[in-house]
C-alpha cells in the first residue's frame, strides 16, 4: 500500500515535470478569432503551416468579435491572448480606447505594400471582403446589375434584406440618390447629407428585412423570405460552393472592407505575435487564404500568388473592381456611435 502510494507520487511528480518542461520548450501563441468558416480557413492557410515552419504551437480561441471582452481582459491586466482578429472599425475603436497595441511595422512588413487603409496604427490587414448584393435567379426573373438596384422597388418588387447597421446602408443610399462614390463620405459628414441618406432609406423601409449575423442573408434567400439581400461575399460564395445554392452575386457598387489582426495591450508574447504577423504578411502567404475562403489579399503584390481557380471569386479580382467604394473607417470612427443611435431611432419610428 505504502509502496504503491510512493509510486504514484513519484509518477505524478515525473508527469508534472514533463508537462512543465514541455511547455518551457514548445512556445505557444494564443490567437482569438471570430470562428466559423473564416477561422477554419485561417487554420489551413496560416496556423498550421506557421506551426510546422517555426515549431510555435498555436492555441486557438473564439469570440463574437465584440471588443468588450478584450477590454475586460486589458482592464483587469489578465490578457491570455497574443493576437485577436477584428473588423477595421473595431481596430480604430480599440486603438482609441487604449486596448490594442500600436504596431511596429519594421517588425512586420513594408507598410506601403498594403492596399490603402489596410495597414493601420493598431491593426494589420488579413484579407479584403466585399459588401455585395445577392439574389436567387430562380426567384428574380430580371437580374439586378448593381447593388444600388436594392432601392428600385418597381423593377424588383418584394422584400429585401439589409444589415441592421448604418454603415454601408447610408453609403448606398447616397449613391442611389446620385452622390458620386468619391463624395459619399464628404456628404455623409454633414447633417443634411445624413438626412438625405435616411430619406432615401425611407423609400424602401417597409420592404426591408434586417439581418444581424453574417449567416442570415444566405438563410433568408434560401427560405425565400426575401428576393435579394446585401451580404458579405464569402458567406454567399460558401452557400453556392458547399450547399449548391443557385445564388448569384452582384459586384457593381460593392463596398470593400478589411479584416484585421491586432495585438491586445499587455499580451504576454509580443515577439511571437510579430513573428506571426511577419509570416502572414509575406505576399505569397497573404495570398494563401483565398484558396480556403473567397476573401482577397490585402497586399498589392500578392495577387500573382493567388490560386488561379480562386481569383475570379474574390472581391478585389480585377473584373469586380469596376465600380466600388472603399469603406472609410476614419469616418465611422468619428460618426459611428452617433449614426448608430440615429439609425436605431429611425428604425423604431
Amino acid at each position, binding site marked *: 500500500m505504502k509502496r504503491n502510494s510512493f509510486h504514484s507520487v513519484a509518477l505524478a511528480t515525473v508527469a508534472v515535470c514533463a508537462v512543465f518542461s514541455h511547455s518551457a520548450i514548445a512556445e505557444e501563441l494564443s490567437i482569438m478569432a471570430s470562428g466559423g468558416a473564416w477561422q477554419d480557413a485561417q487554420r489551413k492557410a496560416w496556423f498550421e503551416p506557421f506551426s510546422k515552419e517555426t515549431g510555435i504551437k498555436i492555441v486557438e480561441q473564439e469570440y*463574437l468579435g*465584440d*471588443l*468588450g*471582452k478584450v*477590454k475586460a481582459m486589458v482592464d483587469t491586466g489578465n490578457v491570455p491572448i497574443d493576437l485577436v482578429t477584428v473588423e477595421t472599425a473595431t481596430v480604430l*475603436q*480599440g*486603438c*482609441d*480606447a*487604449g*486596448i490594442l497595441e500600436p504596431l511596429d511595422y519594421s517588425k512586420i512588413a513594408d507598410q506601403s505594400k498594403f492596399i490603402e487603409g489596410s495597414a493601420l496604427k493598431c491593426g494589420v490587414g488579413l484579407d479584403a471582403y466585399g459588401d455585395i448584393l445577392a439574389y436567387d435567379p430562380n426567384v428574380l426573373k430580371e437580374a439586378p446589375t448593381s447593388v444600388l438596384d436594392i432601392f428600385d422597388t418597381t423593377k424588383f418588387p418584394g422584400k429585401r434584406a439589409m444589415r*441592421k447597421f448604418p454603415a454601408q446602408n447610408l453609403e448606398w443610399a447616397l449613391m442611389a440618390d446620385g452622390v458620386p462614390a468619391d463624395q459619399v463620405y464628404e456628404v455623409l*459628414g454633414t447633417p443634411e447629407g445624413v438626412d438625405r441618406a*435616411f430619406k432615401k432609406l425611407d423609400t424602401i423601409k417597409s420592404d426591408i*428585412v*434586417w439581418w*444581424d449575423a453574417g449567416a442570415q442573408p444566405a438563410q433568408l434567400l434560401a*427560405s*425565400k*423570405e426575401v428576393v435579394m439581400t446585401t451580404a458579405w461575399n464569402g458567406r454567399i460564395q460558401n452557400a453556392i460552393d458547399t450547399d449548391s445554392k443557385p445564388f448569384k452575386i452582384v459586384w457593381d457598387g460593392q463596398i470593400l472592407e478589411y479584416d484585421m489582426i491586432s495585438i491586445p495591450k499587455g499580451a504576454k508574447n509580443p515577439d511571437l505575435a510579430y513573428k506571426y504577423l511577419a509570416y502572414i504578411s509575406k505576399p505569397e502567404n497573404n495570398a494563401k487564404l483565398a484558396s480556403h475562403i473567397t476573401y482577397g489579399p490585402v497586399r498589392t503584390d500578392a495577387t500573382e500568388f493567388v490560386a488561379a481557380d480562386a481569383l475570379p471569386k474574390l472581391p478585389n479580382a480585377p473584373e469586380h473592381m469596376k465600380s466600388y467604394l472603399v469603406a472609410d473607417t*476614419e469616418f465611422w*470612427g*468619428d*460618426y*459611428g*456611435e*452617433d449614426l*448608430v*443611435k*440615429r439609425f*436605431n*431611432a*429611425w*428604425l*423604431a419610428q
Partner: protein
Amino acid sequence: MSRVQPANMDRGQFITAPEAADTRSVAAAIRRSQARERLRSFALAIPLLALLLLSFGIPIAILLSRAVYDPTIANALPLTSAAMQSWSSKEIPDDKTFEALAADLKASQQKGTLSELAKSLNARLPGARSQILKTARALDQEGATDAVSVIKSVPFWTTPGTWATIERGRHALTSFYLLSAVDLRWNADGTIERVPPEQAIFLRVFARTFLVAATVTLATLILGFPLAYLISSVPKTVGAILIVAVLLPFWTSILVRTAAWTVLLQKFGLVNDVLLWLGVTGTRLDLMYSRLGLVIAMTHIQLPFTLLPIYSVMRTIQPSQMRAAYSLGGRPLTSFLRVYLPQVVPGIMAGCLLTFILCLGYYITPALIGGAGDQLISNFIANYVNVELNWEMAAALSFILLVFTMGLYAVFARMLGLDRLKPV
C-alpha cells in the same frame, strides 16, 4: 413572534409601583439578552452579507458610478482646464487657453491618452475625434513655435460649441450620460433641453421594454392561472405529470428555447404551415422579427415563473373551503371571488412580479426573434458595453432601468399591499 414582548410588560397596568423598578430591570435584562441574540444571528449572516456585498453590491456600485464619474477629459486636459476657470462666456477663449491646450495635447500624445480624450469628446460632440487627432498631428509637425495659430487654423477650435462641451466635460462629475439616457441634453445656453426627435430613442425604448414586460406578464397569468388550478385540483399522479410538463422546458437553456421558436415561427415554419392548412389565414404571417413572435416566445419561457408561485399557494387551499362557501349559499363566482381568490393573491403577486422584473432584463430573445422595432433596453446596454465600448452610457441606462424598476416595485407594493407576501 409569539415571544413575550418586553415593551408590553413595561406597559402592564396591574404592576404596582414598588414592583415597577424591578420590572424595568427585568425588562432591561431581557432586552440585553435579545440584543445579544440578535447580534449572534447577525453574525451568522455576516458571511452571506459579505459575499453579497463583494460579488454584487460593490461591482454594481462601481459600474454605476461610471454613469456620473468620467475623469477622462479632466485628466487629459489639466492645463486647459485650469486656464478655463475664468472662462464663462460663449466666446472663443484667449490665447493663454490655446497655449495650455497645445501643451495638454502634446503631453497626452506622449502619454498615449490622446485617443481616449478624442473618444470621450467624440461621444459628446460627434466628429470631434478626428479633429483632435488631426490637431495633435499638426502640432507634432510644426513644432512649438506657433502652436496657437496651428490650433486656430482648425475651424473646430474656433467654434464656441467645442469650448462649451469642454467646459462641461472638464469636471469629472458629469450629468451628460444620465441626461442622454432620458433623451435630454445641455444646450448652448446652459439649460437642459430635449434632444431633437431623430436622436430621441431611449425613452421610447424604456416604454417599449415596460410594455412588452407587462404584456408577457399578463399573458403568463392568463395561461398560468387556470393551469395552476388544474394541476392543484387533479389527482396527485396526474398533477405530477403536468408539473413535469411545465418544468421540462424550464430546465432547457433559454438560448435553445429561443432558437426552437425561430424554427417554429419562421415564414415557412411549422406554425405558418399549420395555420395555412387549417385555413385560419390565407397568407403566411410574419411572425418572426415581430412583436407578436417576441411576446409568444417570452410568454413560453416565463410561464413557469408565474405559474409555480401561484400553484404553491393553491395547493395549500383546502377544497372543503369552497364547499363550505357553496353550502352557505355563495354562488360559484361570489365564492371564487371572496373565498378562493383572496387567498391566491399573494401567489399571483409573487409570480407576476418575478416575471415582470425578469422580462425587463430580456436580451437574447428580442435579439433573435424581435424585429428592429422590438429591441429592449438590455439590447442597447449590451451594444454600448460590447460594441461601442461606451461603458459610461451603458451604466447610465442601467441606472435609469434600476430606478424605474425600483420605483415601479414601490408603487406595486403600495397599491397592492405586498406585505401580504411575507410569511404569516
